[in-house]
């Protein structure tokens, strides 16, 4: 994995004093036009979310709301228990982070650094499961969880996390641990350190970036997740933000200003996280792409 941010900023520093490069000017023009096109949907949605009900339906649209209806946000967010939805989403994300990072990193450690029979065969199965579409396991899992009486609770979304359900994370951890030296591990073993100790004292502290990438992935997936929570979380008190917004979309279908305020609210935490953790988002994506 090449951290492209580091590379590109190095390239930026080197300012070359040459005559105007028209190809670059053209590239900038296209990129600026493209950026505006990518930004306009945000601008339009945010501006709609700040308009009074009467100002929403104008054509051509006015992008600067006059007057600014800040009250749309409290109005929308109190129309449904969005605080509860927010809390549920956070709790699910935390539970999945704990379960998945623990189980996937331990498996990745065994696949990368321990010597045992069956390792290659099992790792091959891990790689195979990467290609299985979720639909195929959707129905039997639902039947399993409904027979266990877990439908309606967080358990169907949390418990598989503790069993390393995400093969991609196992792969990610394994690939990262592979790059770490064997010498340090062997030295620690000679000093009487257990394998759990090696993992906890040597591997994990030196693998913080990959843990960060995985945690960010989980938060984002969890914010995005819709089909599975919809199947399992039947009780409104357990709804996530995605489910809450979908319900809001049905009940306030025609109150566009409130609907846009609610959808901006759901988006904002991820946007904030993105701006602070952009490096890890990008590393995760780039890593996905380099599997090929």
């Amino acid at each position: 994995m090449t951290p492209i941010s580091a590379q590109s900023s190095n390239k930026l520093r080197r300012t070359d004093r040459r005559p105007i490069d028209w190809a670059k000017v053209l590239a900038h023009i296209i990129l600026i036009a493209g950026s505006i096109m990518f930004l306009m949907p945000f601008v339009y949605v945010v501006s709609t979310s700040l308009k009074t009900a009467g100002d929403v339906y104008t054509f051509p649209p006015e992008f600067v709301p006059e007057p600014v209806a800040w009250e749309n946000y409290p109005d929308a967010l109190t129309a449904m228990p969005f605080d509860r939805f927010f809390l549920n989403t956070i709790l699910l994300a935390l539970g999945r982070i704990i379960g998945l990072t623990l189980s996937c990193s331990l498996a990745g450690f065994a696949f990368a650094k321990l010597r045992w029979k069956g390792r290659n065969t099992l790792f091959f199965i891990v790689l195979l499961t990467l290609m299985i579409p979720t639909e195929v396991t959707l129905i039997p899992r639902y039947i399993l969880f409904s027979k266990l009486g877990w439908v309606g609770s967080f358990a169907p979304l949390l418990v598989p996390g503790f069993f390393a359900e995400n093969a991609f994370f196992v792969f990610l951890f394994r690939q990262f641990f592979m790059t770490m030296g064997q010498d340090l591990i062997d030295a620690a073993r000679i000093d009487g350190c257990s394998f759990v100790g090696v993992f906890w004292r040597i591997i994990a502290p030196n693998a913080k970036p990959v843990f960060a990438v995985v945690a960010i992935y989980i938060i984002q997936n969890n914010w995005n997740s819709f089909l599975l929570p919809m199947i399992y979380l039947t009780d409104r008190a357990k709804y996530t933000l995605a489910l809450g917004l979908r319900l809001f979309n049905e009940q306030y279908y025609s109150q566009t200003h409130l609907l846009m305020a609610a959808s901006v609210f759901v988006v904002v935490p991820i946007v904030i996280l993105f701006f602070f953790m952009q490096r890890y988002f990008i590393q995760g994506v780039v890593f996905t792409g380099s599997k090929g």
Partner: protein
Amino acid sequence: MGGFSLNLTFQPKRLSFWESLNAWIFVAPWILGFILFTGGPILASLVISFTEWDIVNPPVWAGLGNYELMLRDPLFFQSLKVTTLYALVAVPLQIVVGLFIAILLNTKIRLIGLYRTLFYLPAVLPIVSVAVMWRWILSRDWGLINWFLSLFGVYGPGWLSEPEWALPALILMSLWGVGSGMLIYLAGLQGIPTDLYEAAKVDGAGAWASFVYVTLPMISPVILFQLVVGLIAAFQVFAQPFIMTQGGPQNATLFYLLHLFRNAFEFFRMGYASALSWVLFIYIAVLTVLIFRFSAAWVFYEGEIKNE
């Protein structure tokens, strides 16, 4: 792309029992998870696909009944058509647009970080929010898209209410999320050694020639990977039609997973839905194999020597 040897060839000389035991304990959660949540369910769904089952009552053996039913289900064919059409149009479009932006960003340009952030941001947004937002953006009378078209004197259609425009609208919307593909191409482009371009220049290649003879071959494995990933993603599209169009108008956006979901969780036809999932599984597998088969003709791997 750099440094990912899978290294499956390792053969230990002498194994320590203690080390093996530890390894099995560390892998145990994954093994259990695989049996309970992946391997087991896959076999179970094959068995269920030969039954009629509403979960509440005991399952009834149906043999190949569900598969025969599928052949007589016009909505199955409609959903297959919609999803395949979407994959055929949206995935190549996403590749072209993503690669185009990545190439522009790879020209040692200023502000690359800012552009990268802007183009990537929409891709991280939760899909339900994006769907809710775009239902408004695509609105016939008040939407942003039709306002944009009106600047050119075009009277835009009811994107989500007219059967012939609903699928194009979802394809257009999917282009807002090309940012993650763009990042992957950008990383790939930055991995191309500059001496290849210098050599091409010495040989008299212009910008277009070096794009066709250097950039495209070097980036082709990434394109192949994105093609396969995009295809699988296309068959997982669910929230957009579910929220924006409910599969309509006139089933114009009845995506495969939406049809499957309705059979399973609205009509509780678990047997039929399992059969649908198996047909999808095989359909994707066949398409993937075909793509890999034909990829030999256009994908170039470094270190590969072509026999002319």
